[in-house]
């Protein structure tokens, strides 16, 4: 049976672990540890290896949900993680100092994978920091000649994460039957 993965990435504290937890049908396998470096300023615990969840789709078929470690020192794992991936969910924390820098960093880091598959962007913490706006993100993406879904997301809300993943599926193939 084929193994399919959806990869969740983004900076520390953007909500990757929570988003995977929102969709997973099994308890999340977390590899969070107490943060010991500057990461602790943003969250007490951080993912040092990866998060893993499962979405059961039918008759034993599973979609594996992987979250990349937020810290850049683990970026050597990203290439391995994306093998067999069907798409990327990029979560960005709007309250960070420079969300556009994060956007560019992750799009560049996963450029090859995105080229092969697709990406959908969820912007978290928009209730804490209303700027940049979703339109601002689109303007940034336009400069990179990219037209991809960018949504406000509360990673704790299953519906938000679900809509983001649905948009990823449709951006991969608008012809998918919906109902």
């Amino acid at each position, binding site marked *: 049976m*084929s193994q399919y993965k959806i990869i969740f990435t983004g900076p520390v504290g953007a909500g990757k672990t929570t988003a995977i937890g929102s969709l997973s049908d099994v308890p999340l396998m977390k590899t969070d540890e107490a943060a010991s470096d500057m990461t602790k300023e943003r969250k007490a615990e951080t993912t040092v290896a990866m998060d893993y969840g499962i979405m059961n*789709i*039918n008759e034993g078929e599973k979609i594996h949900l992987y979250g990349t470690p937020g810290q850049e020192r683990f970026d050597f794992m990203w290439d391995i993680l994306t093998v067999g991936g069907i798409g990327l969910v990029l979560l960005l924390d709007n309250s960070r100092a420079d969300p556009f820098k994060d956007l560019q960093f992750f799009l560049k880091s996963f450029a090859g994978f995105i080229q092969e598959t697709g990406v959908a962007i969820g912007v978290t913490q928009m209730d804490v920091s209303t700027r940049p706006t979703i*339109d601002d993100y689109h303007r940034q993406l336009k400069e990179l000649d990219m*037209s991809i879904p960018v949504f406000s997301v509360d990673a704790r809300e299953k519906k*938000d994460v679900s*809509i983001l993943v649905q*948009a990823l599926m449709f951006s991969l*193939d*608008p012809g998918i039957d919906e109902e």
Partner: protein
Amino acid sequence: MKSKPTDLLAVSLYGMDGRTHKTMTLFIQGPCKGVAKIVEEHEAEVDIIDADAIDARVTLDHCLARKPLRPIIVLSLEKLKIEHTIFVEKPAKTETMLAAFNEAKDTLKGKKKTPIKLIKPEEPIRAEVKVETAKVSKLKPSKEKQAPFELATEKKVFSNPLEQKKTAKHKAAMMINEQNFSSFIGIVKGVNFNDPEQWRNARYHTKQYYQGYVQSSIQVAYEKGQVIKLNSGWKPLIILPHSHELWLDADDKQLRAFAGVEVSSIPVSDVKVMTLSKVNPKEEGFSTELDKFQEMNAFVWKLACWTSKGRYPAVLSISEPIYLKQWPNFTRLVITPHAMRIAALLVVGPRSMLDIIKVLKVKPQYVFIFVSAAYAIGILGQSKRQADQIITAEVPAIKSVQKKSIFSRILNKLRGTDKT
């Protein structure tokens, strides 16, 4: 020669703690002596706001709403571009501060000559609204919507608990499927969507509905950069352009009902009350009813859905290509059937509504309602380029049937588990 006390510019300070207030007072009394004086809020001719204060946004909104004609000097460590304000970078230097005062004086003089005319509540604005509606429909795709309040460095706008609560209540998406489309959206009489010959008749003029008035009023609020109230003879709608929100004392059921009523069918005596007026937050008392605030695009989107009921805006052609500037922020909108598929198809390249119906094999009303809503929030338009009529973007080819199948199953899973 010293200026006479009567020539002194009366200024009021906002968003400053005791120490900063005192420093600023000394600065105005010292280096800026003879030019300005600190007075109480109600006596001031000019407002000075510390934009680095955590509640700067609220303060600015308050100042704009209360005295739209009063010049505002904004102080900040970061370079800000805020329409209708005079910017002074911190640390404030005497020269720049004096220049700002002079600019404020000039503005005051200019405004005395040509005051911005606001429409009085009693004054019917029907003709004016029509003009503004025309402006909205003429917006060109290449024109980026100018944000009137460009606080690029602003990180935490809503810092007090009241504002935080208001923001948090923004509604999440609502997914409408084919089964509940008619009950949620409504039915259009007189159009048989099963007959392709009748599709061209499934159009509506936004100007003839509440939607058109709302869009025009929003346009006016942005152009003037001030809080405006639309008095429609129904429920007052307050437009807050700086926070990109609206306030309406009505629930969705009431809005849906009113959205479908043609304004031309309302008796003339009632139409007369469709006016715009400036807003005094203290008198209106709207700021305390936080649950009635709605995000601007989410509101306009659903209003367009309920006005359209499966029809398309008459200003668009169903046989000419249309383009989508960007994906709608679907997590905060009403998601009509196939809306995401249509968006995914359109961001690839322009194509006509008729073509979308054919390629996606969906009912026309699902395409038309999406087009209406996306057009209403300014992210969709009719393509003007001749090349788009010749070259229609191809549907992105999916890698394999196996993958198509897995995507479909993922969707079914997601749709099955999060139906609302």
